[in-house]
């Protein structure tokens, strides 16, 4: 150990002054890299394709991926504690199918939405409780949750059910114009951005949020420091469950139907977006804003490939795979390169 001990008696004021000069923490490097990648992709697309450089192309990234943004936010909470939630895709499908079925049965839209959100949260809560109190691997528990939710979809309906409810349709077809422009987003985008903002606030500014980071850093230490580890670990899965159900509603607005086979594999998209956004899979490091960026990068790749026209859609998967690997390697390098 080549520790140089602090021996001076510098006042804290001096230290505070030093910290005021902004320097990116090395832990932020992956998120910044994602941002740079996003800008580069967008610039590249703009140079190569006519009509790419437009505000609406940018906004359509949000429109098309609003539900994925919400899923990635929930996933960020879970991954920050060092866990994983594989159930989100199935919960999206279940929320959609259940909404469509209940609406078709004549339920009013608002109770349907509330019920779906409560159910999603309850499923997350239950999985979190099993994970924490029975000390079972999150991977296994949420895998079981994934099969359970997917199976329940088929119990509700095997067929795709169209949604004709006026409120849902209004959400689906509504457009919110940016003041003074022709540019618009869907109402779902506003919901998704609100979720991002609330999540960012909770993670940065509340004891619960800081506890999430502490548990991800070292669960054992957090416990010895007297933090409510049980509440935090169960809480993040409840949050992810809520976000999955909300994402399911947004997906239902987008598709205007409920289908049991919808959103297969979306949990992996959410995980990929979170990791590309700079969240460490082992927990403790990451930002919601990064996950948002991650989703936008995934969306941008799809946009570029659709503009290219000649490329098949599986190129999306290949590029995402390569990116994911690159980011995990980048994080590894940063963690290794760090002191201790």
């Amino acid at each position, binding site marked *: 150990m080549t*520790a140089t*001990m*602090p021996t001076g008696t510098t006042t*804290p004021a001096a230290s505070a002054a030093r910290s005021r000069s902004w320097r990116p923490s090395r832990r932020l490097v992956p998120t910044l890299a994602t941002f740079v990648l996003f800008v580069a992709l967008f610039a590249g697309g703009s140079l190569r394709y006519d009509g790419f450089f437009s505000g609406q192309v940018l906004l359509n990234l949000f429109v098309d991926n609003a539900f994925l943004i919400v899923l990635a936010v929930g996933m960020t909470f879970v991954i920050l504690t060092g866990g994983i939630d594989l159930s989100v895709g199935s919960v999206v499908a279940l929320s959609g199918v259940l909404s469509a079925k209940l609406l078709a049965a004549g339920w009013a839209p608002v109770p349907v939405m509330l019920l779906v959100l409560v159910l999603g949260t309850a499923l997350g809560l239950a999985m979190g409780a099993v994970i924490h109190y029975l000390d079972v691997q999150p991977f296994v528990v949420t895998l079981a949750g994934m099969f359970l939710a997917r199976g329940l979809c088929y119990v509700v309906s095997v067929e795709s059910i169209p949604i004709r409810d006026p409120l849902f349709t209004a959400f689906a077809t509504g457009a919110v114009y940016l003041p003074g422009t022709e540019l618009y987003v869907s109402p779902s985008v506003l919901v998704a951005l609100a979720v991002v903002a609330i999540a960012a606030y909770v993670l940065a500014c509340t004891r619960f949020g800081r506890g999430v980071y502490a548990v991800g*850093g070292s669960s054992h230490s*957090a416990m010895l*420091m007297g933090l409510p580890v049980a509440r935090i670990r169960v809480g993040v899965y409840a949050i992810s469950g809520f976000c999955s159900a909300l994402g399911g509603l947004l997906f239902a607005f987008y598709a205007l139907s409920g289908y049991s086979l919808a959103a297969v594999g979306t949990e992996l998209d959410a995980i990929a977006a979170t990791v590309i956004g700079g969240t460490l899979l082992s927990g403790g490091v990451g930002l919601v804003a990064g996950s948002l960026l991650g989703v936008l990068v995934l969306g941008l790749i799809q946009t570029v490939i659709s503009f290219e026209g000649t490329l098949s859609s599986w190129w999306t998967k290949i590029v995402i795979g390569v990116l994911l690997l690159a980011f995990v390697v980048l994080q590894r390098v940063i963690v290794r390169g760090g002191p201790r």
Partner: protein
Amino acid sequence: MPEPVVAMRGIEIGFPGVKALDGVDFRLLPGEVHALMGENGAGKSTLIKALTGVYGLDGGTVTVRGEPAVFSGPAAAQAAGIATVYQEVNLCPNLSVAENILLGREPRRPVWQGGRIDRRGVRRRAGELLARLRLDVDPDSALGEHPLAVQQLVAIARAVDLEADVLILDEPTSSLDATEVAELFRIVRGLRADGVAVLFVSHFIDQVYEIADRVTILRNGRLVGEHLVAELPRLDMVAKMVGHELAVLADLDREPAAEVAGDPTVTPVLAARGIGRGGAIEPADLDVRPGEVVGLAGLLGSGRTELVRLLFGADRPDAGSLQVRGRPVRLRGPHAAVAEGIAFCSEDRKGEGVVGDLTVRDNIVLALQARRGWARRIPRRTADELVARWISALDIRPADPDALLRNLSGGNQQKCLLARWLITEPRLLILDEPTRGIDVGAKAQIQQLVAELAGDGLGVVFVSAELEEVVRLSDRVAVLRDRRKVGELPRADASVGRVMELIASGGGHLA
């Protein structure tokens, strides 16, 4: 004398089959540093855990500031002003220094302002605490960027913020180097001046004499005594810790390998020159000649195991060199050591030695098979012959090669482990605490065996916490203290008293 802030009387704690604490009295005065000393298993940690509410009491009383106190756990003890800093830093490396100090107790804005964490307030309060400890650390920097020592000091800052008037430091110095320890002690002295009672657990005698005002010594779960450090000579302290229990063992009829012991003309089977590893053991020399038993004596934490792990290549030395039979070697790992004819029986018999779910036969042939490589299976008949020979040679009971190893007693498991290495015909055998936790009879057998093996020309390094055993068995005794080799005694000079003197004085003159 001021009123004790903590008084424990007649503390009794039993675990199944063991009495961990037996009527121990302990008191802690405000404004003192009180050392708790004792060998492994003396009951130090148990006493701390009894105080902080981790263990329930089977007998006795605890009073804090004159009031009877029963804590349900560490959180309750913290609330009563008893903070504990553990040997391992239990903080979150991914968060900032300020957050680690205040996590869970962050100052918050009033509810009408949203009730969010007042980040500026967090930074200011953390800055004040760091200033009070005169630690020049940026509160915004990530904890993980700092050396372990600073992290340990941040843990103390967290404890201080609890406004604790009792601070328990459980072996806080075990991972620190000398300058870092000095920094820690400066802070401890400051706290003492503020009237905090500090309970300091350490194996390092020098540090106890440097920092502590009073010492309580435990041995085998019993109170040996409470003394003012200034009035207790070092030799007495060591004697009180180690005790004078002479094991009832048969005398060994062993011819000392006097003709080779210390004879510079005989090429050592293993010669270490200035071998060391930062934070584990300071550079030391050690020679082992054929037919010689070299004992390593020292208290727990003195670096015995650390030294032999370097000799076996289990850890990489960062200084010094090794010679095997006069040829310089660089051991890249245990595998290389085995190839050089070095065998090592770990002190952690269960974790690093025997495989409980395999049979006696499988355990014994394990190392030989490993040396041959997995592709060249040992023929069953050869294995049976070898195993039968060693079972009878070492008197392993039951003498059944098909018995599962976990069903054997500790002593017999140890013999299987020995057989495993002896079958590979090593030139040098390193035994780390081979007699720990086994009964007296098996102990005597293993000692006898070591003597015989040396008689056959094997070089042996024998590590034991029991000084009598080391002295009786060894041709030479190397004495370690505080991670440093402080001397070497030839058989003629070696006695328990001399070894204890060396441990107490550290090679210099006695205090």
